[in-house]
């Protein structure tokens, strides 16, 4: 197998490994399944364009999240924020298994409500930390922040989540 073929194979393996995670990340940042799908594809196309030019990447996972985040930021500048009602109206369908659809619908609605009520900067770190399961070091590199700042944002973000959940309990 030539070097070229090896690189293509390696990249397609990275697609198989990380595409669901990138899609999930996009989905929980924009709450639009179709758009999340487009952003996922765009992420991998941009990643390949970069890599095919001979540029090197140390951590492909963090690199993909960084691209996805840039696409999300670029697009969010063009769009107004979206309310929970609009999200529900557009159809909430993030699950793959039809059998689980009904019971998951409610928890899905709840997590969207929580994430959607957070400020942008906290929302990003909460999604990356808890839903994407990224380390603080990886989040710091994706957001171009220091690790300390990321710790603080996660802590504050989680406090906000806790308050929202406590409110719901009352």
């Amino acid at each position, binding site marked *: *197998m*030539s*070097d*070229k*073929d*090896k*690189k*293509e194979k*390696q*990249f*397609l393996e*990275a*697609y*198989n490994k990380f*595409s*669901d995670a990138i*899609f*999930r990340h996009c*989905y*929980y940042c924009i709450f639009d399944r*179709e758009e999340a*799908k*487009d952003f*996922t*594809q765009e992420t*991998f*196309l941009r990643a*390949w*364009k970069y*890599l*095919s*030019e*001979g*540029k*090197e*990447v*140390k*951590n*492909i996972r963090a*690199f993909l999240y960084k691209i996805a985040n840039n696409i999300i930021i670029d697009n969010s500048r*063009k769009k107004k924020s979206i309310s929970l009602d609009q999200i529900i109206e557009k159809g909430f369908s*993030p*699950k*793959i*298994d039809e059998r*689980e659809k009904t019971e*998951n619908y409610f*928890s*899905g609605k*709840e*997590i969207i409500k*929580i994430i959607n009520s957070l400020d942008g900067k906290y929302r990003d770190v909460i999604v990356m930390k*808890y*839903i994407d*399961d990224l380390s603080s070091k990886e989040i710091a590199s994706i957001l171009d922040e220091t690790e300390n700042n990321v710790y603080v944002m996660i802590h504050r973000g989680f406090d906000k*989540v*806790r308050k929202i*959940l*406590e409110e719901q*309990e009352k």
Partner: protein
Amino acid sequence: MKIEKKFKNLIKEARKTILFKEEKEGINLNLVKFIKENPVVRNPILERPLYNPETKSSFKIIMNYLFEKRMRAFAFLAIAILLFGGAGISFAAQGSLPGDPLYPVKVGFNEKVLRMVLFSDEAKAKYDIQLVQLRLQEAEKVAVDKGLNSAKTAELKNLLDQHIADAKSHLGNIKNSNAADIIANIDSELESSLAAHSQILGKIADVQKGQDKTAAFVKNILSDVQEKTDKARIDIKNNYSKLSGQSSADILSSAEGKLKSAGNKIKEVANFIENKKSNVSESAYNAAKNNLKIANDEISDGQVLLDAKSYNDAFDQFQAAEQTAQKTKIYVQQGANLKIELNIPEIQIKKDADSENSDSSNINQQDNTDQNRINRINKNISNQVEINPQIKNIIN
């Protein structure tokens, strides 16, 4: 503690969000296509791995060193072909053309193995359409090199028949709620490819006219492709009738989906044209950009129809925009690959009442499908529409 547990459960549910199998395969196909069109640039840096693994064993370092030199890689390949036969030959067959000794390995083995990794009928049908495109590209390459003969012509025609029949058979198996949209999309892609390649083959036939005995074989393939294009257009018309039978909510959703995919296609082709700018003539580049503006106009027309709740016509209009972009991509791609001046046709939509009487030999007005579409637009659009600003930015 209760709150933490609740949060943990919610996160657990959120992590179940993944792409549907068909969606994942669809993106994978687009990615493979994109990789093929944008291969790795050969330079010394690429001798390094694509990305650094966390740990690198000394074995890997030694292996990288051993295979750094191209000559050694070639030697290795030659040995592989001699010793292991199958795998090496299969690899070597990938770039072969009709008439080459390894071509049967490519079409009879490699392509069938690749098909086995696809699960859904939709992915398989899309794959078959890509094979149709590949066969047409091969036909054009052999035609330009004046290498067509009766055996190669017959083989290419048979393969085209087979791929189209396979695609249709997979489309027939799709029974889910989006079946009508999926079939419309794939038929539309097939028609665009056939129509664009028919133009290219026509151009090659014109250039070779009277010069060479192989020109007759080019004409033979051309007439076969034209016949297939006509059939594909009939299929599109039938799809249009089926779409009309759906509920208005379903048609609206189909039209909105088509709007999105047409927009994406225009973006993709705009990037493609920019990437190929240095490989095509200035006039071809300008004509391609002009075609994209026309595709953009078609989108704007469709948006007007959508606002007027004429969802069927809006769908048709967005589909036309997607096809315009797709055809443009093929003209640019083959112009660059074959290194010939293709005089990229400018697809024009006349909005005046005389359009029905326009010159029938003009390639821009060549089929009834386009004509019907133009007539419908004339009926529905009274004012000049503005170019969709998002896409305008990309094109300019």
